Structures are given as structure tokens and as C-alpha cells.
């Protein structure tokens, strides 16, 4: 197992590469999720006005 992590002495490079790549993807997904939450919240707040303006059948 420790051989796997050591990668024949190149562990630092291999895991820095894989690690940052994984981190970048995780950050992207989380940023997407939090942006979605914020946008949905804003859309909910807009709702009463648009309902008043557009009426029932838009």
C-alpha cells in the first residue's frame, strides 16, 4: 500500500497533480451548487412581483 503512495519516489509529483485536479473539480461542483442556491433564492424573492404584474395567464 505504501508502495502505491510512494510511486517509486515520485509520489509528491503524482499526488500533487492528481490531488489538485480532484480539488479543482470539487471546487467547481461546490461553486456551482452554491451559485444555484443563491439564484433559486433570488428567483423566489422575485416571484410576488411577477405574479402581480403578469397576472394568471402569461
Amino acid at each position, binding site marked *: 500500500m505504501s508502495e502505491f503512495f510512494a*510511486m517509486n519516489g515520485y509520489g509528491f*509529483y503524482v499526488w500533487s497533480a492528481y490531488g489538485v485536479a480532484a480539488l479543482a473539480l470539487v471546487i467547481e461542483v461546490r461553486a456551482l451548487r452554491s451559485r*444555484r442556491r443563491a439564484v433559486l433564492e433570488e428567483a423566489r424573492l422575485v416571484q410576488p412581483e*411577477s405574479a402581480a404584474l403578469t397576472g394568471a395567464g402569461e
Partner: protein
Amino acid sequence: MATSWFKYSSPASFYPLAGKMIPWFAAAAAVLAVAGLVIGLVVAPTDATQSDAYRIIFIHVPAAWMSMFLYVVMAAWSAAALGFNTRLSAMMAQAIAPTGALMTFIALWTGAFWGRPTWGTYWAWDARMTSELILLFLYLGIIALRNAIDEPRRADKACAVLALTGVVNVPIIYFSVYWWNTLHQGSSVSMTRAPSMAAIMLVGMLVMALAGWFYAIAVILARVRTIIVDRERGASWVAALREVRHA
């Protein structure tokens, strides 16, 4: 048959379709990624010249392919946005840019960490890495232009023009950098030259590339859904969405 696809060209009808597609692409990406990582980190043999450091190519090469492919796809959606004047095409282009930039960053980072142990330096001005760096600047420029323009339709069209100008220039930029590099290095040491490919290494790269492709589709569809809700905020179909009413 052609007309039935056009009904999805309105944000309102594309939104639920995209929502249904995301879980499938995400699941496919996860499965392929696991398979690819197993091949790349475990199954593929240690290389004779580059030892285990070469395993970085299983991330580096797919990321580089994705970064270029996504730029072309973004340019295609931009062309559609200008040609057909459709909002959704522009929204798709808008959704692609951040993922494309991220793939470019991953390609550059993994390339640097592959270069250090193998060729002794984190950064060498070889043709491919330099072109990849410029590609990152092109992506960031599009994102910066989008952020700088407040009015969404103007931003759509401006970013579309910029993306198309860029896509024409990318081959020219690559050619010029390659020319510059070979003139100054004689027998060009390509920093990103992979070891001679055993079949299993090629399979590993292709599996990871597919995983990256499906991941990108899932993430971009998710982003475009958020963009749609954000830009169509006043519409009654948005107000009626369950996720909006219970936000």
C-alpha cells in the same frame, strides 16, 4: 423530425430536459473515472524511462484534449447564438467557458508536475504548454468580458464575437508558437512527450478522456440550468418551479 428538436431551443423546455440528463452523465462520468483511475494508477505498468511519474498523463492529456474541444464547442454555440439569435445558444456558450478554463488550468498544472521530475523543470516554453497557457488567457478574457457587460444580450453577442475571433486565432497562435519554439530549440524537446504507448496506457487515457467529457457535459448542463433560472427570473414558468417555490 427536425422540428421536434427545435422545441427544446427555448429555455423553458430545455430546462427540464437538461435536468433529466444530468444524473445519467454524472453517473457515467463517475464509473468511467473509477475505471480510468484503476487503469492509470494500478493496472498500467511502471514505465522504463519515466518510472511512475508518467502516470500523470492520465489526467494531463485528457484535460488538455477537453480544454481544446470545449473551446471549439463554445465557439460553435457562439456561432449559433449570432446566426439564429437564440438566447439558449448564448447561455450554453456562457456555461462552457468556466469549465473550459478549469480544464486548461488542470492541464497546465499537471503538465508542470509531470515536467519537474521528468525534464527537470516545472515550466519550459515548449509549444504545447505555451499555447495552452494562451488558451487559458483566451478563456479568462471571455469570462472577464461577460462579467464586464451588465446587459445580458449585449454580453451574449460580444462574447460570441470574441469566442469566434479566438477560435480562428487558436490554430494561428499554435502555429506561431510551434515555429518559435522549433527555431530556438533545434531538436525540440517536447515537454509533454509521453512514453511510447503500451496499449493499456492508451486505453487508460481514452477512458479518462471519456470520463472528463461526461463530467463536463453534466457540469455544463447544471450550470446552464442555473443561468436559465437567473436570466428568466421574471417568467411565470420559473416562479412555478418546485425548487424556486421551496428555495
